[in-house]
């Protein structure tokens, strides 16, 4: 017991012997020396995404004869029996829900491990 108390005393003294070291510009010096990041180009990301989406949409519109296939497919959808539409909606909902549960479980496991 005495030995344990001595150990605790020694550990406590060792911890007390190292005061908090003020930053005094240390972090700034480290950040200055970091390799150039891609952060400066990150503002371009949304513009690139929007431009790519617009280009893909325009291409699809042209190649599909003015989007005529959409009208055709919409017409087909209206002819599907109501029971099938309800069943499809239900199945889609269950798939999305299962995906959400799996993602939540995976995130919880990662948090516990880290």
């Amino acid at each position, binding site marked *: 017991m005495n030995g344990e108390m001595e150990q605790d005393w020694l550990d406590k003294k060792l911890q007390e012997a*190292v005061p908090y070291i003020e930053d005094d510009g240390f*972090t700034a010096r480290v*950040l200055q020396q*970091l390799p150039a990041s891609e952060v400066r180009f990150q503002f371009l990301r949304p513009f690139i995404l929007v431009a790519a989406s617009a280009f893909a949409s325009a291409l699809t519109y042209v190649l599909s004869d003015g989007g005529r296939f959409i009208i055709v497919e919409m017409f087909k959808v209206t002819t599907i029996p109501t029971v099938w539409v309800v069943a499809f909606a239900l199945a889609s909902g269950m798939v999305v829900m299962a995906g959400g549960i799996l993602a939540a479980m995976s995130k919880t496991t990662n948090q516990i*491990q880290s």
Partner: protein
Amino acid sequence: MELTDAGLVARVLIDDDQHAYGELVRRHQSSVRGLLRQLTRGDVALADDLAQDAFIRAYKNIRSFRGEAKFSTWLYRITYNCFREDARKRKELVGINEEQWQAEQDPQTVDPGLRHDLMHALSLLPLHERSAVLLCCQQGLSHDEAARVLEIPLGTVKTNVLRGREKLKKTLAAWGS
């Protein structure tokens, strides 16, 4: 709400967010610089240079951090490697040998002003014992975490901590008498 270390690391990984990394540096700079000051026996300039190297190296290799251990443990490992590489270059890795240690702990040879200075007693320990004592007793790492940082077997860490503690106690007792 303040982000955890893991959250900040995620930001660095996903967005290459250097501000997030800056926050990690701010959080850990004191302990890393403190550890290096002890390892370098109080050489503040060298310790700070090594600390900078360690943080830059950690940033460059952050993708190898898999979150299996705490960020601080992973950072200490890089820090210790930086110190070890530098010590190898300076041929100081072997530390003080046993005879030198015995001579230095002689109360007659020690500056009276330092008699009760625990840090001085610590600096007299050989490097392998000093590192183990610093990590386990001062920085609060478990033996297992210290073994990962020092890349030595768990049993060796326990032995080094035990021996280091004993020597510290002996030195302090000798100075106290």
